[in-house]
């Protein structure tokens, strides 16, 4: 019975609306007061039923909810034969709840779209060797699955046979299909655009990359800031307090109407819902636009950032350095290049890769006694000769004398923004290479947008030489540039800036920068979506898309502002209602309920604006 009534809430709302219209029609058009009263009585009783049931359920678990306030108020109005008020208040309360549900679903839609991309079924190889469709929850690690053209990849896995093109937009944001063959990795939630593949399940369910992203976003939309937790605690005592207040007023004034009006006016309505609504809409907008924000605390801090610190390689630059210039000193160039290639082969440093690519095919020697000098380079023994590969500091340490010409070359290379790789054989400089990394396209414009959004300091920290870093800083219009920074120097720098009262965001690729990411007020990872960095940072720019950064900052500013607006609307409405009850004649239960429901809708609609937020192109 209870369930039936609650399930028919919408129909009840409609019927009471019709009854109220009928009542006023018969009063003013037919001048029939009997129909007027009876319509309103039926509307009141009918409308109160679902509210009273909810109130009873709440009291049973010891919660004084809004339903309780409304039930007492309406019952009171009914007993003193104010049927007009009791009918209208119940109707408004029910209709308001209906509208809230509709609009809330809208604000949640962005995140819902994301979760609905989750795969639901899979074709699993059974014991008899046949593939059968099963629920994705029934897939275990190690199972063999078949994915056909047009289907979603159900789990993270490895291709065992077949080939095809996969659209990985749900993970990376990149919608150009990626070719997959045997041994390629495939990800849950991506779509096989053509071809047929068999895969082995490596990670299933919530452990997949897609599952982790969804869980993260779901947690984020419901994570609470300090202010929200305060409101929660507040509202726990607020509603019972309103009840007590109404009772005291009745005791003193013996005026039932006044007492029950206070119950209705005091409903906390918009206050509790205002902030979560802004939060979900803001995070939803981000998720749709390739920015993962981890909760309302992050939004608040992010919106206040005045200093953004960037890692250079892979963040401001493409992260794919190439040899741009080189000079040889002395003879036997081929032999020296072979030594160099042999040593660099041992290293996974990005510059080493650039060197190898430049040298190409060559004879390789056995490398012995390799010694990595931190912040310097590599020293090794090749073919009985001592090879030193690294920067100028390493050459000084190795007592390699630089000729006048070499010095000029070094200077010239540095001014052009090259990172330097010097090679010395037995203490004699043989090769100087200048390696350059391309600046990401569009970064300059994005940085200008950040400045316009109120960021005062844009700083680049890099392990590269000062010349290179200065050049990048000049080209991009950064405020400060520091070279020769080891990871621990970077985090020390952030600590120093924080001590000066700056609120800092650090943007890095999340591999070697994890201390800085963790230390900064906001750690922003440039993630391809498959990185573990997703978990350690506060915000992630999907698909390493730098241009999402201004959007992210603008969005958090708008969202933080939106939350404040909603709090002001909610508190303002309660104050105005109570004040007008004391100072004016026209305030009554029906108007109070109308204003309350309207204010709830206003905060939801206000929050919904965030879904459409886009950074305006204010570039001249």
């Amino acid at each position, binding site marked *: 019975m209870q369930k039936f009534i609650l399930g028919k809430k919408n129909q009840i709302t409609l019927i009471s609306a019709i009854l109220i219209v009928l009542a006023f029609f018969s009063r003013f058009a037919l001048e029939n007061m009997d129909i007027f009263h009876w319509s309103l009585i039926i509307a009141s009783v009918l409308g109160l039923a679902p509210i009273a049931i909810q109130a009873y359920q709440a009291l049973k678990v010891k919660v004084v*909810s809004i339903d309780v306030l409304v039930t007492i108020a309406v019952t009171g109005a009914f007993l003193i034969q104010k049927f007009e008020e009791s009918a209208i208040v119940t109707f408004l309360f029910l209709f308001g709840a209906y509208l809230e549900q509709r609009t*809330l679903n809208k604000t*949640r839609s962005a*995140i819902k779209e994301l979760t609905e991309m989750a795969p639901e079924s899979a074709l699993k190889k059974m014991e008899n060797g046949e593939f059968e469709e099963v629920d994705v929850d029934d897939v275990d690690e190690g199972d063999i699955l078949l994915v056909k053209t047009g289907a979603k990849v159900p789990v993270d896995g490895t291709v065992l046979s077949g080939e095809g093109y996969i659209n990985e937009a749900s993970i990376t944001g990149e919608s150009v299909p990626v070719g997959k063959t045997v041994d390629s990795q495939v990800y849950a939630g991506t779509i096989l655009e053509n071809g047929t593949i068999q895969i082995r399940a490596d990670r299933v369910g919530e452990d997949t990359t897609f599952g982790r992203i969804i869980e993260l976003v*779901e947690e984020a939309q419901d994570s609470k800031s300090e202010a929200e937790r305060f409101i929660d605690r507040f509202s726990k005592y607020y509603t019972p307090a309103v009840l007590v207040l109404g009772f005291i007023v009745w005791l003193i004034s013996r005026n039932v109407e006044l007492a029950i009006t206070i119950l209705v006016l005091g409903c906390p309505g918009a206050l509790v819902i205002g902030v979560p609504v802004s939060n979900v809409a803001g995070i939803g907008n981000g998720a749709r636009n390739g920015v993962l924000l981890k909760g309302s605390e992050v939004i608040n801090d992010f919106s206040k950032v005045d200093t953004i610190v960037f890692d250079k390689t892979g963040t401001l630059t493409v992260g794919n350095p190439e040899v741009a210039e080189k000079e040889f000193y002395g003879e036997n160039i081929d032999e020296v290049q072979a030594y160099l290639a042999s040593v660099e082969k041992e290293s996974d440093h990005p510059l080493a890769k650039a060197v190898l690519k430049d040298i190409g095919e060559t004879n390789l020697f056995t490398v012995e006694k390799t010694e990595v000098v931190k912040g310097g380079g590599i020293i090794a023994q090749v073919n009985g000769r001592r090879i030193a590969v690294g920067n100028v500091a390493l050459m000084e340490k190795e007592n390699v004398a630089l000729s006048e010409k070499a010095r000029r070359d070094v200077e010239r290379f540095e001014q052009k923004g090259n990172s330097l790789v010097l090679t010395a054989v037995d203490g004699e400089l043989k090769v100087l290479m200048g390696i350059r990394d391309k600046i990401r396209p569009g970064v300059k414009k994005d940085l200008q947008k950040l400045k316009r959004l109120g960021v005062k300091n844009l700083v680049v920290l890099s392990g590269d030489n000062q010349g290179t870093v200065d050049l990048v800083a000049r080209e991009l219009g950064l405020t400060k540039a520091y070279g020769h920074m080891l990871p621990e120097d970077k985090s020390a720098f952030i600590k120093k800036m924080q001590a000066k009262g700056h609120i800092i965001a650090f943007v890095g690729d999340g591999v070697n920068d994890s201390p800085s990411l963790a230390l900064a007020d906001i750690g922003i990872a440039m993630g391809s979506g498959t990185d573990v960095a997703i978990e350690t940072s506060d915000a992630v720019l999907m698909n390493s898309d730098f241009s999402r950064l201004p959007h992210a900052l603008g969005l958090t500013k708008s969202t933080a502002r939106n939350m404040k607006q909603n709090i002001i609307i909610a508190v303002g409405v309660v104050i105005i209602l109570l004040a007008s009850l004391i100072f004016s004649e026209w305030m009554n239960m029906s108007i109070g309920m109308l204003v309350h429901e309207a204010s709830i809708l206003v905060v939801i609609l206000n929050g919904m604006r965030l879904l459409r937020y886009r950074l305006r192109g204010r570039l001249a």
Partner: protein
Amino acid sequence: MQKAVIQLEPLVCPSCMQKIEHAVKLLNGIRQDSIKILFNASKVRVNFDSDKLTVGEIEKAIETLGYEVISSKVKPA
């Protein structure tokens, strides 16, 4: 100890959260500090002692309040 994730119909009023939280808390075998009601995701996450309680009983407690349970998953915690 098991971990249940219960998906509910979309929650609309925040006082629903309070109600659900209290109702679930009153059950015997619930890890009190593990209850998490996700308002926007409309989910309940809770750890419970599987000797004393089944997920069906948790679902029933929520449904008696008038909120429909859409699905639930149980994993060892």
